[in-house]
């Protein structure tokens, strides 16, 4: 290539007199930075290694050291490694990878997620979990009315729509991953199943902080289900939820009652196989919402929803404490609708951070 004609860097910003011909663009006053000297410092990547947590953009050289193993978000040629996404570098004992700022949810085994059924097909449901591909929920990995021990029969296949049909929202756990990264779910515990009496909101999945338990009862008789995939379900606290929070007297076998709205017929907490059969009766797949939801609970649910939206707007990680703090901070605004104003959202975000710092308990990382 003949030598690239290097172009002189213009120091002062040029004020462009608006040309009489009006359709010509008239520049705002800000400085139009024309050609920068090609061989100037600003172009090539810095020779030294990019530090951890530092921002890289696609095509940028990260390191030339061959010892690093190349993980997600990188590609390599001989021993130089380049970044293939815009994000921050993470170096975990010799595994170098780039975490993109934004990206869809990538399922991991064991994640507690909330999803929506999009398709009913041969012995499986397709579930939209906001990932790159829809997840699969096999007929075999679902609780069927009549208890766990029942064998799956032909008639079940025909009645699949009576259990779960398109549009139903459910919470489930990622059982395993396929070769191309898509997830296979299961709901074989009373904790999981069809969700009702509530409202679904979506936030970027990176904002939901992974923790041991994702179902929290909130003041104001509302329960929140933080799906790791960013799908969040808010609903009226059911008896199940109450039972879950209070340490149950009976032998708390691992079958803890799920908030699937399955009404436990006898309040005593003795867990017995027979009770399981009653619980996994047809109720767990009923579509009827609980009629006794009072308007005040509805208001609480929508207030919580707006609080969560505010936190997401300020890109603050969602944890149980922060939601409660945010809720308390939002009491000041009587009209719930106001909460989604930009300024209000920002002020809630700041309040949550300040109050949290004051309380000193900091984010449960």
């Amino acid at each position, binding site marked *: 290539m003949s030598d690239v004609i290097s172009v002189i860097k213009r120091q002062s910003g040029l004020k462009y007199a608006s040309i009489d011909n009006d*359709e010509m*663009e008239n520049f*705002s006053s800000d400085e139009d930075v024309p050609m*920068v000297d090609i061989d100037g410092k600003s172009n090539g990547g810095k020779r030294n290694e990019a530090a951890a947590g530092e*921002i890289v953009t696609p*095509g940028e050289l990260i390191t030339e050291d061959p010892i690093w193993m190349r993980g997600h978000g990188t590609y390599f040629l001989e021993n130089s490694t380049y970044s293939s996404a815009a994000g921050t570098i993470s170096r975990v004992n010799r595994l170098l990878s780039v975490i993109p*700022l934004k990206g869809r949810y990538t399922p991991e085994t064991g994640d507690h997620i909330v999803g929506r059924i999009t398709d009913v097909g041969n012995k499986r449901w397709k579930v939209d979990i906001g990932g790159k591909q829809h997840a699969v929920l096999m007929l075999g990995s679902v609780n069927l009315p009549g208890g766990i021990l029942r064998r799956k029969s032909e008639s079940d296949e025909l009645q699949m729509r009576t259990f779960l049909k398109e549009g139903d929202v459910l919470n489930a756990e990622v059982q395993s991953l396929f070769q*191309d990264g898509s997830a296979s779910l299961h709901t074989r515990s009373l904790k999981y199943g069809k969700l009702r009496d509530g409202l679904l909101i979506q936030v970027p999945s990176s904002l939901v902080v992974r923790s041991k338990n994702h179902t929290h009862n909130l003041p104001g008789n509302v329960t929140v289900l933080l799906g790791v995939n960013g799908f969040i379900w808010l609903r009226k606290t059911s008896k199940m939820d109450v039972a879950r929070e209070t340490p149950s007297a009976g032998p708390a076998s691992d079958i803890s009652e799920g908030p699937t709205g399955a009404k436990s017929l006898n309040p005593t907490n003795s867990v017995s196989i027979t009770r399981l059969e009653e619980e996994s009766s047809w109720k767990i797949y009923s579509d009827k919402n609980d009629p006794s939801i009072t308007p005040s609970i509805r208001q609480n649910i929508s207030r919580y929803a707006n609080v969560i939206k505010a936190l997401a707007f300020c890109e*603050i*990680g969602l944890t149980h404490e922060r939601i409660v703090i945010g809720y308390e901070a939002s009491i000041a605004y009587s009209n719930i609708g106001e909460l989604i104003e930009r300024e209000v959202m920002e002020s809630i975000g700041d309040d949550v951070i300040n109050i949290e710092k004051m309380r000193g308990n900091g984010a449960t990382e």
Partner: protein
Amino acid sequence: MSRFEIYSPEGLRLDGRRWNEVRRFECSINTHAHAADGSSYLEQGNNKIITLVKGPKEPSLRSQANSLKATMDVSVNITRFSKFERSAISHKNERRVLEIQTALLRTFEKNIMLHLYPRTQISIQVHILQQDGGMFASLINGITLALIDAGIAMYDYVSGISIGLFDTTPLLDVNTLEENAMSTVTLGVIGKSEKLSLLSVEDKIPLDRLESVLAIGIAGAHRLRDLMDEELRKHAHKRVIKASTK
């Protein structure tokens, strides 16, 4: 209209720029977070372009799913009010628009790591609100930004630039008046390299001039790449600070 000089002897163009100056280039990403995975709004001179990238998502029609790699589709919507006069007919399936869509698709098909997202679909929608020359080049920049915002793995930036040739002097980043008055070349350059992913010459150019026009174009494209990179890093920095306070 009176014949006014496209390029004055003193070396000034209609809008006061020099031969090697790029127009005002302002871009922002994550502008439509609710509507799409990746979005960008680009103003290059008077070109105003919104780009939305949806994906990698479940393909809408089952038939489109390819088991080895993601399938892509590009749709360019030239609004009727984008030019000075409102255009009578909608440009939807004009052959020129079909050609641009195919060219953009084939440019980014080679740049995106499609094999990482099998059985998925990446759909790119571009809305041209206002166009003032070098529209094809701005489309390339808009799509590059939106793809990066969507977090889709790609090898490098693709930066687009248009160069006019006013009898012997190449003029960088032409607007409509210059585009109508002279032959223009549109380039799609890969990152900081001198590799051309896209090259389109629509009118006659002397063979011996082409090389110098390409050289200027590539330098210009690198310049735009740096501007995009700068904006991206600023945006990323803001997010990282906000995230670190979590």
